[in-house]
């Protein structure tokens, strides 16, 4: 299944995984050690990232390493996904500001 790349970036854990493996290829266990969540949940995030074609798998002996498809990361979709995220957060900040302004007017 090909997923929307926005879905990959929407989740903070997945964003953190992308940044971790941008530095070096890692096994699922090594990735999971960085997070206080179940191994199963990390597997789910890795599967979604793979379906978005952001991750490549490399077999080394008995271990599977995940690495970032760096070409993909430079693509316009990733920039758009980040821009979307920035706009979303910006507007949430504006919601709070508007709320404060409304209350001070009363």
């Amino acid at each position, binding site marked *: 299944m090909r997923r929307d790349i926005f879905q990959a970036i929407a989740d903070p854990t997945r964003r953190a995984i992308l*940044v971790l493996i941008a530095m070096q290829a890692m096994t699922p266990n090594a990735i999971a050690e960085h997070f206080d969540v179940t191994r199963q949940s990390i597997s789910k995030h890795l599967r979604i990232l793979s379906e978005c074609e952001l991750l490549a798998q490399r077999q080394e002996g008995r271990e599977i390493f995940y690495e970032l498809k760096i070409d993909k990361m430079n693509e316009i979709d990733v*920039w758009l996904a980040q821009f979307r995220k920035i*706009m979303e957060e910006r507007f949430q900040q504006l919601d*709070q*500001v508007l709320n404060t*302004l409304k209350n001070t007017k009363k």
Partner: protein
Amino acid sequence: MNLLFDFTADKATATIYITREFAADLDLVWDAFTKAEILDLWMGPKPWRVQTKEMDFQIGGRWLYAMISPENVAPTRYSLAEFVEIQPKSSFTTKNSFADENGDPINSGFTFSMTKNSFKAEGEKTTVQIVKKMASFAELEQFIAMGYKEGMAMVMRNLDEYLRSVAPNK
């Protein structure tokens, strides 16, 4: 309250379309998009913040602002929005580019984008539509490649913070 948020991009025309509802009346939302003291409160993507250097909201006027890092390092790059069209309480269009501290253009590998913000009152709510037209997505890709390293450094700092929050025992 559930507020509409819609984001689409048309790659063929290098245009981004954003629609967002706000739970406030038109006057307030218009002020929030056009008054520097309010813009400074919400425009910064956390942990960065926006600081206005100049604001002259009239046709031919401009808004010069910078992104300030959490370390409060003096900015070297400013963003410039020149007001090319204003229909009070209805819409305004800006030409967006990067500039130095005096608002003079700098060579950033990025020419400019045009952004039209339209406002519509709907009962208690106000809907804002933003149409952002880039010069080209090819140019944008080049710009992204340049900013990629800088962006990664920022993401790493955010990641440190995030990891501390999710794994307090490590």
